[in-house]
Protein backbone atom coordinates (compact mmCIF):
# COMPACT_ATOMS: atom_id res chain seq x y z
CA UNK A 1 0.00 0.00 0.00
CA UNK A 2 2.84 2.28 0.93
CA UNK A 3 4.41 1.97 -2.48
CA UNK A 4 1.13 2.66 -4.23
CA UNK A 5 0.67 5.76 -2.17
CA UNK A 6 4.18 6.92 -3.04
CA UNK A 7 3.55 6.36 -6.73
CA UNK A 8 0.31 8.30 -6.54
CA UNK A 9 2.11 11.11 -4.78
CA UNK A 10 4.82 11.14 -7.45
CA UNK A 11 2.18 11.26 -10.15
CA UNK A 12 0.39 14.19 -8.61
CA UNK A 13 3.76 15.96 -8.11
CA UNK A 14 4.63 15.56 -11.77
CA UNK A 15 1.22 16.89 -12.69
CA UNK A 16 2.12 20.05 -10.90
CA UNK A 17 4.71 21.04 -13.46
CA UNK A 18 3.60 23.37 -16.24
CA UNK A 19 5.26 24.22 -19.48
CA UNK A 20 4.63 27.79 -20.54
CA UNK A 21 5.72 29.17 -23.87
CA UNK A 22 6.39 32.91 -24.23
CA UNK A 23 6.31 34.08 -27.83
CA UNK A 24 5.96 37.33 -29.74
CA UNK A 25 7.93 39.60 -32.09
CA UNK A 26 11.34 40.98 -31.12
CA UNK A 27 11.19 43.93 -28.72
CA UNK A 28 7.71 42.91 -27.46
CA UNK A 29 9.02 42.50 -23.91
CA UNK A 30 9.11 38.71 -23.47
CA UNK A 31 12.37 38.60 -21.53
CA UNK A 32 11.27 41.47 -19.28
CA UNK A 33 8.05 39.56 -18.49
CA UNK A 34 10.09 36.40 -17.82
CA UNK A 35 12.37 38.28 -15.44
CA UNK A 36 9.41 39.94 -13.72
CA UNK A 37 7.78 36.52 -13.22
CA UNK A 38 11.02 35.31 -11.64
CA UNK A 39 11.32 38.55 -9.57
CA UNK A 40 14.67 39.38 -11.17
CA UNK A 41 16.31 42.69 -12.03
CA UNK A 42 15.17 44.02 -15.44
CA UNK A 43 17.80 46.74 -15.95
CA UNK A 44 20.39 44.71 -17.83
CA UNK A 45 18.28 42.99 -20.46
CA UNK A 46 19.80 42.16 -23.86
CA UNK A 47 18.11 40.89 -27.04
CA UNK A 48 17.51 37.14 -26.86
CA UNK A 49 19.64 35.13 -29.21
CA UNK A 50 18.15 31.64 -28.92
CA UNK A 51 16.05 31.29 -25.79
CA UNK A 52 15.92 31.74 -22.02
CA UNK A 53 14.24 29.40 -19.58
CA UNK A 54 13.29 29.95 -15.96
CA UNK A 55 11.37 27.96 -13.39
CA UNK A 56 8.95 29.90 -11.23
CA UNK A 57 6.88 28.62 -8.29
CA UNK A 58 3.27 29.72 -8.20
CA UNK A 59 0.42 28.37 -6.06
CA UNK A 60 2.10 24.99 -5.66
CA UNK A 61 2.85 24.69 -9.37
CA UNK A 62 6.30 24.69 -10.90
CA UNK A 63 6.12 26.80 -14.03
CA UNK A 64 8.82 26.18 -16.60
CA UNK A 65 8.71 29.31 -18.69
CA UNK A 66 10.37 29.23 -22.11
CA UNK A 67 11.16 32.63 -23.58
CA UNK A 68 12.11 32.23 -27.24
CA UNK A 69 13.75 35.01 -29.24
CA UNK A 70 11.36 36.90 -31.52
CA UNK A 71 13.53 38.06 -34.40
CA UNK A 72 12.52 36.89 -37.84
CA UNK A 73 15.41 34.49 -38.34
CA UNK A 74 14.59 32.68 -35.08
CA UNK A 75 10.82 32.35 -35.66
CA UNK A 76 11.17 29.16 -37.77
CA UNK A 77 12.54 27.47 -34.61
CA UNK A 78 9.49 28.36 -32.51
CA UNK A 79 7.72 25.16 -33.47
CA UNK A 80 10.53 23.05 -31.97
CA UNK A 81 9.23 24.17 -28.59
CA UNK A 82 5.49 23.53 -29.10
CA UNK A 83 5.33 19.97 -27.76
CA UNK A 84 3.57 19.51 -24.40
CA UNK A 85 2.90 23.21 -23.95
CA UNK A 86 0.29 23.85 -21.23
CA UNK A 87 -0.20 27.57 -21.84
CA UNK A 88 0.87 29.88 -24.63
CA UNK A 89 1.60 33.46 -23.66
CA UNK A 90 1.80 35.80 -26.63
CA UNK A 91 3.34 39.21 -26.03
CA UNK A 92 2.51 42.27 -28.14
CA UNK A 93 4.19 45.69 -28.06
CA UNK A 94 1.08 47.91 -27.89
CA UNK A 95 3.03 50.92 -29.20
CA UNK A 96 4.24 49.17 -32.34
CA UNK A 97 1.25 49.87 -34.59
CA UNK A 98 3.33 49.37 -37.72
CA UNK A 99 3.89 45.74 -36.86
CA UNK A 100 0.46 44.89 -35.46
CA UNK A 101 -0.36 43.14 -38.71
CA UNK A 102 2.93 41.22 -38.69
CA UNK A 103 2.37 40.04 -35.12
CA UNK A 104 -1.19 39.05 -36.07
CA UNK A 105 0.11 36.87 -38.90
CA UNK A 106 2.56 35.13 -36.57
CA UNK A 107 -0.17 34.50 -33.98
CA UNK A 108 -2.48 33.16 -36.67
CA UNK A 109 0.20 30.61 -37.59
CA UNK A 110 0.55 29.58 -33.96
CA UNK A 111 -3.15 29.05 -33.31
CA UNK A 112 -3.62 27.02 -36.47
CA UNK A 113 -0.74 24.68 -35.60
CA UNK A 114 -1.89 21.22 -34.59
CA UNK A 115 0.66 20.86 -31.80
CA UNK A 116 -0.86 23.88 -30.09
CA UNK A 117 -4.49 23.01 -30.65
CA UNK A 118 -6.62 23.61 -27.56
CA UNK A 119 -3.72 25.19 -25.63
CA UNK A 120 -5.04 28.16 -23.59
CA UNK A 121 -3.79 31.49 -24.91
CA UNK A 122 -2.95 34.57 -22.87
CA UNK A 123 -2.16 37.71 -24.86
CA UNK A 124 -0.21 40.40 -23.02
CA UNK A 125 -0.83 43.86 -24.49
CA UNK A 126 2.47 45.16 -23.14
CA UNK A 127 4.00 48.64 -22.70
CA UNK A 128 0.78 50.23 -21.44
CA UNK A 129 2.91 52.68 -19.43
CA UNK A 130 3.75 54.49 -22.68
CA UNK A 131 1.49 57.26 -23.94
CA UNK A 132 1.28 55.99 -27.50
CA UNK A 133 0.17 52.49 -26.40
CA UNK A 134 -3.01 51.21 -28.01
CA UNK A 135 -5.61 49.95 -25.54
CA UNK A 136 -5.91 46.20 -25.08
CA UNK A 137 -9.26 46.17 -26.88
CA UNK A 138 -7.64 47.59 -30.04
CA UNK A 139 -4.92 44.95 -29.85
CA UNK A 140 -7.59 42.24 -29.47
CA UNK A 141 -9.34 43.58 -32.59
CA UNK A 142 -6.07 43.86 -34.51
CA UNK A 143 -5.28 40.23 -33.73
CA UNK A 144 -8.90 39.17 -34.50
CA UNK A 145 -9.04 37.28 -31.21
CA UNK A 146 -12.84 37.03 -31.45
CA UNK A 147 -12.49 34.64 -34.39
CA UNK A 148 -10.65 32.06 -32.25
CA UNK A 149 -12.76 28.97 -31.74
CA UNK A 150 -12.27 25.99 -29.46
CA UNK A 151 -9.73 27.75 -27.34
CA UNK A 152 -9.78 29.50 -23.98
CA UNK A 153 -8.08 32.85 -24.33
CA UNK A 154 -7.64 36.09 -22.47
CA UNK A 155 -6.16 39.49 -23.31
CA UNK A 156 -4.41 41.29 -20.50
CA UNK A 157 -3.16 44.88 -20.59
CA UNK A 158 0.20 45.15 -18.84
CA UNK A 159 3.39 47.05 -18.32
CA UNK A 160 6.25 44.64 -17.73
CA UNK A 161 8.49 47.59 -16.90
CA UNK A 162 6.23 48.74 -14.07
CA UNK A 163 5.17 45.21 -13.20
CA UNK A 164 1.50 46.08 -13.72
CA UNK A 165 -0.90 43.45 -15.06
CA UNK A 166 1.64 40.62 -14.98
CA UNK A 167 0.23 39.13 -11.80
CA UNK A 168 -3.34 39.34 -13.16
CA UNK A 169 -2.22 37.46 -16.25
CA UNK A 170 -0.51 34.83 -14.15
CA UNK A 171 -3.64 34.40 -12.05
CA UNK A 172 -5.69 33.77 -15.17
CA UNK A 173 -3.11 31.15 -16.22
CA UNK A 174 -3.32 29.40 -12.84
CA UNK A 175 -7.11 29.48 -12.81
CA UNK A 176 -7.34 28.10 -16.35
CA UNK A 177 -4.88 25.26 -15.86
CA UNK A 178 -6.29 24.16 -12.50
CA UNK A 179 -9.71 23.89 -14.13
CA UNK A 180 -8.17 21.86 -16.95
CA UNK A 181 -6.09 19.59 -14.71
CA UNK A 182 -9.15 18.64 -12.67
Amino acid sequence: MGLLKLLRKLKSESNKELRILLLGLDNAGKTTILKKLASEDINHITPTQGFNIKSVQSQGFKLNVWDIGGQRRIRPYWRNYFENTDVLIYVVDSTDKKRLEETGVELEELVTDEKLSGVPLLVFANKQDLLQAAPASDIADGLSLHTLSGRTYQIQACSALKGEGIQDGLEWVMKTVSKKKK
Partner: protein
Amino acid sequence: MPEHATSTGRKTRRMPVQTQASINLIDLLYKITLLRCFIKWILRLVTGTCELQRITQKYKSGVCTVKIEESLQRSKFSEIRQMIEVEPEDIDAAIQQIISLKNISFDANSRFISCMKVCLEQIHGYDSLFCTIEELRVETYNSCNGNHEALLLKLWNLLQPENALKERVSRQWGEIGFQGTDPKTDFRGMGILGLKNLVYFAEVHNELARKTLLHSHHPQYGYSYAIVGINLTSMAYEFMSSGLLRTHFFNTVHGRPNVNHFNEVFSYLMFEFDKFWMKSEPENVMEFSRIRDEFNQTVEAVLKYVPSAKLSLDNSS
Protein backbone atom coordinates in the same frame (compact mmCIF):
# COMPACT_ATOMS: atom_id res chain seq x y z
CA MET B 1 30.80 22.24 19.01
CA PRO B 2 29.30 19.74 21.42
CA GLU B 3 32.57 18.28 22.79
CA HIS B 4 33.66 21.68 23.93
CA ALA B 5 30.30 22.21 25.59
CA THR B 6 30.76 19.12 27.80
CA SER B 7 34.39 19.80 28.58
CA THR B 8 33.59 23.22 30.05
CA GLY B 9 32.17 21.46 33.13
CA ARG B 10 29.15 22.08 35.27
CA LYS B 11 30.20 25.33 36.86
CA THR B 12 30.26 27.32 33.65
CA ARG B 13 26.92 28.37 32.29
CA ARG B 14 25.91 26.57 29.12
CA MET B 15 26.09 28.77 26.12
CA PRO B 16 24.16 28.23 22.90
CA VAL B 17 26.29 26.28 20.45
CA GLN B 18 26.23 29.14 17.96
CA THR B 19 27.59 31.70 20.43
CA GLN B 20 30.37 29.34 21.42
CA ALA B 21 31.27 28.71 17.82
CA SER B 22 31.44 32.43 17.11
CA ILE B 23 33.58 32.99 20.22
CA ASN B 24 35.93 30.25 19.05
CA LEU B 25 36.08 31.93 15.66
CA ILE B 26 36.83 35.34 17.17
CA ASP B 27 39.49 33.75 19.32
CA LEU B 28 41.03 32.09 16.29
CA LEU B 29 40.98 35.31 14.26
CA TYR B 30 42.55 37.16 17.17
CA LYS B 31 45.35 34.59 17.37
CA ILE B 32 45.92 34.80 13.61
CA THR B 33 46.11 38.60 13.78
CA LEU B 34 48.54 38.43 16.69
CA LEU B 35 50.65 35.90 14.83
CA ARG B 36 50.59 38.05 11.69
CA CYS B 37 51.70 41.13 13.62
CA PHE B 38 54.44 39.13 15.26
CA ILE B 39 55.73 37.76 11.95
CA LYS B 40 55.59 41.25 10.43
CA TRP B 41 57.57 42.62 13.38
CA ILE B 42 60.23 39.90 13.09
CA LEU B 43 60.49 40.43 9.32
CA ARG B 44 60.84 44.15 9.77
CA LEU B 45 63.64 43.59 12.32
CA VAL B 46 65.48 41.16 10.07
CA THR B 47 65.05 42.81 6.66
CA GLY B 48 64.74 46.43 7.76
CA THR B 49 61.78 46.89 5.38
CA CYS B 50 58.04 47.11 6.00
CA GLU B 51 55.41 44.86 4.45
CA LEU B 52 54.60 47.32 1.66
CA GLN B 53 58.24 47.51 0.64
CA ARG B 54 58.59 43.75 0.67
CA ILE B 55 55.54 43.44 -1.58
CA THR B 56 56.86 45.96 -4.12
CA GLN B 57 60.19 44.16 -4.17
CA LYS B 58 58.80 40.67 -4.45
CA TYR B 59 55.79 40.95 -6.74
CA LYS B 60 55.18 42.41 -10.17
CA SER B 61 52.19 44.08 -11.90
CA GLY B 62 48.72 42.78 -11.01
CA VAL B 63 49.67 40.59 -8.07
CA CYS B 64 51.62 43.48 -6.53
CA THR B 65 48.55 45.76 -6.71
CA VAL B 66 46.27 43.13 -5.17
CA LYS B 67 48.72 42.52 -2.28
CA ILE B 68 49.29 46.24 -1.70
CA GLU B 69 45.54 46.79 -1.56
CA GLU B 70 45.11 43.98 0.98
CA SER B 71 47.94 45.32 3.08
CA LEU B 72 46.59 48.89 3.06
CA GLN B 73 43.09 47.64 3.96
CA ARG B 74 44.50 45.85 7.01
CA SER B 75 46.62 48.78 8.15
CA LYS B 76 46.35 49.81 11.78
CA PHE B 77 46.24 53.49 10.68
CA SER B 78 42.74 54.62 9.79
CA GLU B 79 44.23 57.31 7.48
CA ILE B 80 45.81 54.56 5.39
CA ARG B 81 42.68 52.39 5.32
CA GLN B 82 40.77 55.47 4.17
CA MET B 83 43.08 55.82 1.15
CA ILE B 84 41.58 52.63 -0.26
CA GLU B 85 37.98 53.56 0.46
CA VAL B 86 38.10 57.09 -0.94
CA GLU B 87 40.49 58.24 -3.65
CA PRO B 88 43.04 60.69 -2.19
CA GLU B 89 43.01 64.07 -3.93
CA ASP B 90 46.78 64.10 -4.16
CA ILE B 91 48.27 60.63 -4.56
CA ASP B 92 51.88 61.83 -4.10
CA ALA B 93 50.96 63.44 -0.80
CA ALA B 94 49.14 60.28 0.26
CA ILE B 95 52.25 58.19 -0.41
CA GLN B 96 54.38 60.63 1.61
CA GLN B 97 51.86 60.24 4.42
CA ILE B 98 52.20 56.45 4.29
CA ILE B 99 55.99 56.81 4.41
CA SER B 100 55.92 59.04 7.46
CA LEU B 101 53.17 57.12 9.32
CA LYS B 102 54.93 53.83 8.83
CA ASN B 103 58.35 55.36 9.31
CA ILE B 104 59.67 53.83 6.11
CA SER B 105 63.28 54.33 5.18
CA PHE B 106 64.58 53.48 1.74
CA ASP B 107 67.34 54.50 -0.62
CA ALA B 108 66.76 57.00 -3.37
CA ASN B 109 66.90 54.38 -6.12
CA SER B 110 64.06 52.40 -4.65
CA ARG B 111 61.07 51.93 -6.90
CA PHE B 112 58.83 52.03 -3.87
CA ILE B 113 57.24 55.43 -4.58
CA SER B 114 56.61 54.83 -8.27
CA CYS B 115 55.25 51.39 -7.52
CA MET B 116 52.87 52.65 -4.84
CA LYS B 117 51.68 55.37 -7.18
CA VAL B 118 50.82 52.91 -9.94
CA CYS B 119 49.04 50.66 -7.45
CA LEU B 120 46.88 53.44 -6.03
CA GLU B 121 46.06 54.72 -9.51
CA GLN B 122 45.10 51.24 -10.69
CA ILE B 123 42.89 50.62 -7.66
CA HIS B 124 40.99 53.90 -7.94
CA GLY B 125 41.14 54.00 -11.74
CA TYR B 126 39.13 50.79 -11.83
CA ASP B 127 36.32 52.27 -9.76
CA SER B 128 36.15 55.48 -11.76
CA LEU B 129 36.18 53.54 -15.04
CA PHE B 130 33.22 51.55 -13.79
CA CYS B 131 31.34 54.84 -13.17
CA THR B 132 32.05 55.93 -16.76
CA ILE B 133 30.94 52.55 -18.13
CA GLU B 134 27.75 52.73 -16.09
CA GLU B 135 26.99 56.23 -17.44
CA LEU B 136 27.32 54.94 -21.01
CA ARG B 137 25.16 51.92 -20.24
CA VAL B 138 22.26 53.91 -18.82
CA GLU B 139 22.32 56.30 -21.81
CA THR B 140 19.58 54.81 -23.97
CA TYR B 141 19.79 54.92 -27.75
CA ASN B 142 17.80 57.86 -29.04
CA SER B 143 17.19 58.27 -32.77
CA CYS B 144 16.70 62.03 -32.29
CA ASN B 145 20.28 62.30 -31.00
CA GLY B 146 22.60 63.17 -33.91
CA ASN B 147 25.64 61.64 -32.21
CA HIS B 148 23.89 58.33 -31.67
CA GLU B 149 22.70 58.22 -35.27
CA ALA B 150 26.15 59.10 -36.61
CA LEU B 151 27.70 56.34 -34.51
CA LEU B 152 25.20 53.80 -35.81
CA LEU B 153 25.84 54.74 -39.45
CA LYS B 154 29.56 54.61 -38.77
CA LEU B 155 29.16 51.02 -37.60
CA TRP B 156 27.44 50.15 -40.86
CA ASN B 157 30.13 51.80 -42.99
CA LEU B 158 32.95 50.14 -41.08
CA LEU B 159 31.46 46.69 -41.44
CA GLN B 160 29.94 47.02 -44.90
CA PRO B 161 32.16 49.55 -46.76
CA GLU B 162 31.27 48.13 -50.16
CA ASN B 163 27.57 47.97 -49.51
CA ALA B 164 25.73 51.26 -49.03
CA LEU B 165 22.80 51.44 -46.64
CA LYS B 166 19.85 52.39 -48.82
CA GLU B 167 17.54 53.66 -46.10
CA ARG B 168 17.91 54.44 -42.42
CA VAL B 169 15.06 52.03 -41.59
CA SER B 170 15.81 48.98 -43.63
CA ARG B 171 15.93 45.19 -43.70
CA GLN B 172 19.62 45.58 -44.51
CA TRP B 173 20.44 45.98 -40.80
CA GLY B 174 19.91 42.24 -40.54
CA GLU B 175 23.11 41.74 -42.56
CA ILE B 176 25.20 42.94 -39.63
CA GLY B 177 23.03 41.07 -37.17
CA PHE B 178 20.40 43.47 -35.85
CA GLN B 179 16.97 41.97 -35.29
CA GLY B 180 14.61 44.09 -37.33
CA THR B 181 14.57 47.11 -39.59
CA ASP B 182 15.70 49.63 -36.97
CA PRO B 183 18.56 48.83 -34.58
CA LYS B 184 17.39 51.46 -32.07
CA THR B 185 15.35 48.88 -30.12
CA ASP B 186 18.17 46.36 -29.91
CA PHE B 187 20.51 48.09 -27.47
CA ARG B 188 18.13 47.64 -24.53
CA GLY B 189 19.81 47.45 -21.14
CA MET B 190 23.30 48.01 -22.56
CA GLY B 191 22.46 51.40 -24.11
CA ILE B 192 25.16 53.38 -25.89
CA LEU B 193 27.82 51.21 -24.27
CA GLY B 194 26.77 48.35 -26.57
CA LEU B 195 27.01 50.56 -29.66
CA LYS B 196 30.38 52.05 -28.65
CA ASN B 197 31.81 48.57 -28.10
CA LEU B 198 30.68 47.43 -31.55
CA VAL B 199 32.03 50.57 -33.25
CA TYR B 200 35.41 50.27 -31.49
CA PHE B 201 35.89 46.66 -32.53
CA ALA B 202 34.87 47.46 -36.12
CA GLU B 203 37.16 50.50 -36.25
CA VAL B 204 40.30 49.47 -34.39
CA HIS B 205 40.28 45.80 -35.36
CA ASN B 206 38.51 46.20 -38.68
CA GLU B 207 39.97 43.14 -40.34
CA LEU B 208 39.10 40.89 -37.37
CA ALA B 209 35.63 42.37 -37.06
CA ARG B 210 34.87 41.74 -40.71
CA LYS B 211 36.24 38.22 -40.46
CA THR B 212 33.98 37.64 -37.45
CA LEU B 213 31.03 39.10 -39.34
CA LEU B 214 31.75 36.71 -42.18
CA HIS B 215 31.65 33.76 -39.74
CA SER B 216 28.30 35.00 -38.47
CA HIS B 217 26.94 34.46 -42.00
CA HIS B 218 27.94 30.79 -42.00
CA PRO B 219 25.04 28.69 -43.38
CA GLN B 220 24.98 26.34 -40.38
CA TYR B 221 26.93 28.03 -37.59
CA GLY B 222 25.62 31.50 -38.38
CA TYR B 223 24.46 33.90 -35.65
CA SER B 224 23.34 37.54 -35.38
CA TYR B 225 26.59 39.50 -35.16
CA ALA B 226 25.30 42.70 -33.52
CA ILE B 227 22.92 40.95 -31.12
CA VAL B 228 25.64 38.58 -29.96
CA GLY B 229 27.86 41.65 -29.59
CA ILE B 230 25.32 43.32 -27.30
CA ASN B 231 25.14 40.11 -25.25
CA LEU B 232 28.94 40.16 -24.97
CA THR B 233 28.87 43.80 -23.86
CA SER B 234 26.63 42.56 -21.09
CA MET B 235 29.19 39.87 -20.24
CA ALA B 236 32.05 42.39 -20.12
CA TYR B 237 29.89 44.70 -18.00
CA GLU B 238 29.14 41.89 -15.52
CA PHE B 239 32.85 41.09 -15.25
CA MET B 240 33.52 44.77 -14.64
CA SER B 241 30.81 45.29 -12.02
CA SER B 242 31.72 42.15 -10.08
CA GLY B 243 35.35 43.28 -9.93
CA LEU B 244 36.59 40.29 -11.92
CA LEU B 245 38.34 42.50 -14.50
CA ARG B 246 40.62 43.94 -11.82
CA THR B 247 43.20 41.20 -12.38
CA HIS B 248 43.20 41.88 -16.11
CA PHE B 249 43.45 45.67 -15.80
CA PHE B 250 46.08 45.53 -13.05
CA ASN B 251 48.17 43.27 -15.27
CA THR B 252 47.80 45.22 -18.49
CA VAL B 253 47.33 48.91 -17.66
CA HIS B 254 50.17 50.72 -15.91
CA GLY B 255 47.97 53.34 -14.28
CA ARG B 256 44.35 54.35 -14.74
CA PRO B 257 42.35 52.29 -17.26
CA ASN B 258 40.03 54.16 -19.64
CA VAL B 259 37.02 53.34 -21.84
CA ASN B 260 39.24 52.07 -24.65
CA HIS B 261 40.74 49.50 -22.33
CA PHE B 262 37.20 48.29 -21.70
CA ASN B 263 36.57 48.33 -25.47
CA GLU B 264 39.61 46.08 -25.82
CA VAL B 265 38.09 43.59 -23.38
CA PHE B 266 34.93 43.61 -25.49
CA SER B 267 36.99 43.06 -28.66
CA TYR B 268 38.69 40.12 -26.98
CA LEU B 269 35.34 38.59 -26.00
CA MET B 270 33.90 39.11 -29.48
CA PHE B 271 36.86 37.49 -31.20
CA GLU B 272 37.25 34.65 -28.70
CA PHE B 273 33.53 33.92 -28.52
CA ASP B 274 33.41 33.54 -32.29
CA LYS B 275 36.23 31.00 -32.13
CA PHE B 276 34.55 29.20 -29.23
CA TRP B 277 31.22 29.12 -31.06
CA MET B 278 32.65 27.80 -34.34
CA LYS B 279 34.60 25.13 -32.45
CA SER B 280 31.44 24.03 -30.61
CA GLU B 281 29.79 23.30 -33.96
CA PRO B 282 26.30 24.16 -32.67
CA GLU B 283 23.30 22.57 -34.29
CA ASN B 284 21.73 25.98 -34.76
CA VAL B 285 21.50 29.45 -33.23
CA MET B 286 19.15 28.18 -30.50
CA GLU B 287 22.21 26.81 -28.73
CA PHE B 288 23.46 30.31 -28.06
CA SER B 289 22.56 30.52 -24.34
CA ARG B 290 24.27 27.23 -23.53
CA ILE B 291 27.45 28.06 -25.44
CA ARG B 292 27.52 31.61 -24.10
CA ASP B 293 27.32 30.26 -20.53
CA GLU B 294 30.15 27.82 -21.18
CA PHE B 295 32.26 30.58 -22.67
CA ASN B 296 31.45 32.82 -19.72
CA GLN B 297 32.59 30.16 -17.25
CA THR B 298 35.84 29.66 -19.14
CA VAL B 299 36.76 33.35 -19.09
CA GLU B 300 35.55 33.74 -15.51
CA ALA B 301 37.80 30.90 -14.35
CA VAL B 302 40.83 32.58 -15.91
CA LEU B 303 40.01 35.93 -14.29
CA LYS B 304 39.39 34.29 -10.91
CA TYR B 305 42.19 31.80 -10.63
CA VAL B 306 45.05 32.98 -12.84
CA PRO B 307 46.93 35.83 -11.13
CA SER B 308 48.72 36.74 -14.38
CA ALA B 309 45.46 36.81 -16.41
CA LYS B 310 45.46 39.10 -19.45
CA LEU B 311 42.55 39.14 -21.89
CA SER B 312 44.57 40.21 -24.90
CA LEU B 313 43.51 39.81 -28.49
CA ASP B 314 45.57 37.11 -30.13
CA ASN B 315 44.89 37.17 -33.85
CA SER B 316 47.77 34.93 -34.85
CA SER B 317 45.51 31.92 -35.39
